[in-house]
């Protein structure tokens, strides 16, 4: 089948929905998602959204900007960060007006709480900047935006999996999507295509990410010739629930939770004397694993997150969801016992390079890829640089999702649609047929499992040249094995094995991009820590990595207000 819209958005998480809400009154908008509405991974965001609205104590966007830049280890593009933090208060009030049920303070205003790396007076002490709805902030914002989309008649192609982007005369003109419910292929033509497909945490064994976070959009863009930027910067969240990797929100520490090693010590005092447990995530993750390596962790490789001094009322009111996870999965009650935690792969700082209006950039000189846009975790503006601060991700999706919507609305009247030929649909059919009918001896699960373990071993919190080279060797052999995968399920409806095969192809490609980016960044910055190059090297590496299909190139980071300085918390 063939369909036409003005704008097609891939992904129904916060960035995609926010973009749709922005342009639906002026354009015919469709959203394509491989999951049902409200099942996207944005819904798993717990802690909050940052904005310097100062409801609890004095705050300024300049402080928010400084923290974000320092958190990024000075790699974020400061012009983009300035746009984001200045827009943050508007975002919060807009969501509140749409109906988001933010938690409240005694004055009836939106309540705010502490989060890692967010400070007042340029790093002096923690500041309450995160606006939240208990510990289900992402989910309630997702629901609210979905309802707005329904209200404005956004068309949803749910459970549709995008196989390829269609380019005509150098311009993105649509996509080919596989309908999971029927096995049919659909060509969806559009004047503008927005990739809002989220992250790729499922490349790693231990992750807070949902099953759908396989990085499809990133690799679709890369296959179409778009470079991927700063892919070495993968955030490991310090407090994944041991041994599952499920997120235990930083809000737990924001509300006063303390990390302790097996000796009962509050070890963060040694790593971040000023803000302690509220240091940036990369700092805390390295601290936890250093404690474990030096024999002060618990057997299996974890530490304790102690909430017991917070009291039952506060825990249940502000941290109900995570309390529920811990009770269900570990049989532990956080009100009375410490919670075992260890770092878990959480967020991709890098992604598809865009300008501050979501237009995809196809090279280091900023040439725009016509018709193609990206927003949210799959995009790299770059506002997070080498390490993202907590609660800045929801802000990113909402600020740049909206700006992307505005840009598409502005751009589409000038775009003459080129007729799309049958070729892409034919190619899609051939791709499905070749996957379904090839014979082989390998299974998806085995290759995926090996990839996930290998990436933990060589490319997680601590990295070095030897390991990264081993990783590259390993990923190339996994790719060879992948060409020998046989799909047993030949069915047409809800054939998840087939979808997972395509996903795995993307994951393997992205794993290689991540390893290569990490190998060539011979310094340590933010979430990228090289044991063989433990210091930051601004002289050689204050620049963004761009991985093209034919090799790596770099482009300088934009520095405006804050010159790089030593990063101490």
């Amino acid at each position: 089948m063939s369909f036409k819209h003005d704008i097609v958005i891939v992904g129904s998480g916060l960035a995609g929905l926010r973009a749709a809400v922005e342009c639906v009154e002026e354009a015919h908008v469709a959203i394509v998602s491989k999951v049902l509405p409200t099942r996207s991974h944005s819904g798993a965001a717990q802690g909050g959204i940052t904005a310097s609205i100062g409801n609890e104590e004095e705050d300024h966007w300049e402080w928010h900007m400084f923290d974000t830049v320092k958190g990024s280890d000075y790699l974020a593009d400061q012009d983009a960060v300035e746009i984001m933090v200045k827009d943050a208060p508007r975002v919060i009030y807009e969501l509140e007006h749409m109906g988001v049920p933010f938690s409240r303070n005694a004055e009836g205003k939106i309540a705010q709480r502490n989060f890692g790396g967010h400070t007042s007076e340029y790093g002096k002490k923690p500041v309450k900047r995160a606006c939240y709805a208990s510990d289900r902030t992402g989910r309630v914002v997702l629901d609210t935006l979905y309802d707005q989309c329904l209200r404005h008649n956004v068309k949803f192609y749910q459970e549709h999996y995008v196989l390829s982007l269609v380019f005509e005369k150098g311009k993105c003109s649509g996509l080919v999507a596989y309908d999971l419910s029927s096995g049919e292929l659909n060509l969806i033509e559009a004047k503008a295509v927005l990739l809002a497909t989220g992250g790729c945490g499922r490349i790693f064994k231990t992750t807070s990410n949902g099953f759908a976070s396989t990085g499809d959009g990133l690799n679709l863009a890369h296959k179409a010739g778009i470079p991927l930027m700063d892919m070495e910067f993968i955030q490991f969240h310090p407090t994944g629930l041991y041994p599952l990797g499920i997120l235990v929100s930083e809000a737990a520490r924001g509300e006063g939770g303390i990390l302790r090693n097996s000796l009962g010590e509050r070890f963060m005092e040694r790593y971040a004397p000023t803000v302690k447990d509220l240091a940036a995530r990369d700092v805390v993750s390295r601290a936890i694993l250093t404690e474990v390596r030096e024999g002060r962790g618990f057997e299996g490789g974890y530490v304790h997150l102690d909430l017991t001094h917070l009291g039952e009322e506060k825990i249940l009111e502000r941290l109900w969801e995570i309390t529920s996870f811990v009770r269900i999965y570990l049989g532990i009650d956080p009100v009375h016992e410490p919670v075992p935690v260890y770092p878990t792969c959480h967020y991709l700082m890098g992604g598809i390079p865009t300008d501050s209006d979501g237009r995809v950039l196809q090279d280091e000189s900023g040439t725009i890829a016509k018709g193609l846009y990206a927003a949210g975790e799959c995009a790299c503006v770059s506002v997070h640089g080498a390490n993202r601060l907590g609660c800045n991700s929801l802000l990113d999706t909402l600020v740049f999702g909206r700006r992307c919507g505005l840009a598409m609305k502005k751009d589409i009247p000038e775009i003459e649609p080129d007729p799309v030929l049958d070729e892409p649909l034919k190619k899609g059919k051939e791709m499905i047929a070749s996957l379904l009918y090839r014979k082989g001896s390998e299974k998806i699960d085995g290759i995926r499992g090996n990839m996930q373990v290998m990436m933990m071993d060589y490319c997680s919190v601590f990295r070095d040249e030897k390991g990264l080279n081993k990783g590259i060797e390993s990923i190339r052999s996994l790719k060879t094995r992948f060409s020998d995968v046989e799909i047993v399920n030949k069915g047409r409806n809800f054939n998840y094995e087939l979808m997972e095969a395509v996903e795995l192809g993307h994951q393997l490609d992205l794993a290689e991009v991540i390893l290569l980016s990490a190998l060539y960044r011979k310094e340590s910055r933010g979430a990228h820590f090289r044991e063989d190059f433990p210091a930051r090297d601004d002289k050689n590496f204050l620049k963004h990595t761009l991985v093209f299909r034919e090799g790596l190139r770099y482009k300088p980071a934009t520095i405006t207000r804050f010159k790089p300085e030593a990063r101490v918390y």
Partner: protein
Amino acid sequence: MIIKFRIFRYNPDKDVEPYYQNYEVEASPKDRILDCLNRIRAENDPTLSFRMSCGHGVCGSDGMRINGTSALACQKLVKDFEKNEELLIEPLQVFRVRKDLVVDMDPFFERYYSVKPYLITKTPAPDKERLQSIEEHREFEYAIRCILCACCTASCPVNQNKATETYIGPAALVRAFRYFFDSRDEGSKERIAVLDSKDGAWGCQTKWMCTKVCPKEIPVTKQIFEIKKRILESSKGDLK
């Protein structure tokens, strides 16, 4: 240990009737039922279909019947069923089966939308936030836990009964409650027009199944009762 599963199978493309298939899986007591299903799919039978997304009870994708009770497969552990000889896995009731454990959720979302699940306001928005006290927020706090997994609606005897299946169901009513009792909302009249009907709040026969199965411990039945009470009160007094 080895766990025995008996799983509902149906592929409308080729099966005349649904049937049950037996599987055995190596599992540990702390494994999620979802982990076991994934192991079955990876090791025994890639044709088995079920939905999943977050894997920890936030997205609401993997609602299904486990030994007869609606639940999220990612929130139930093997040890929860230690006394059972085998685990019976079936799709949610009420909804049409599209394949195996995958059901048609479209009617669910249509009914959900019928309750106007958005804030209705008449007074212009202030420059900053609308104020709401902590107590006012508490009124509807439990309702915002809802993840639209449909376990409640699928378990409701009223929705299961062919004679009363047009009842909009507990999940839609929880969302209605969430806005009806939000102090910022000014759409009570519009909401009552939807809720004050035999298929609206009055469809509830207080069977408590929704409350019993809710994975988020929402007092669903009580909230439906509060909606009914407010509809009755509204006939006496002024509403926004």
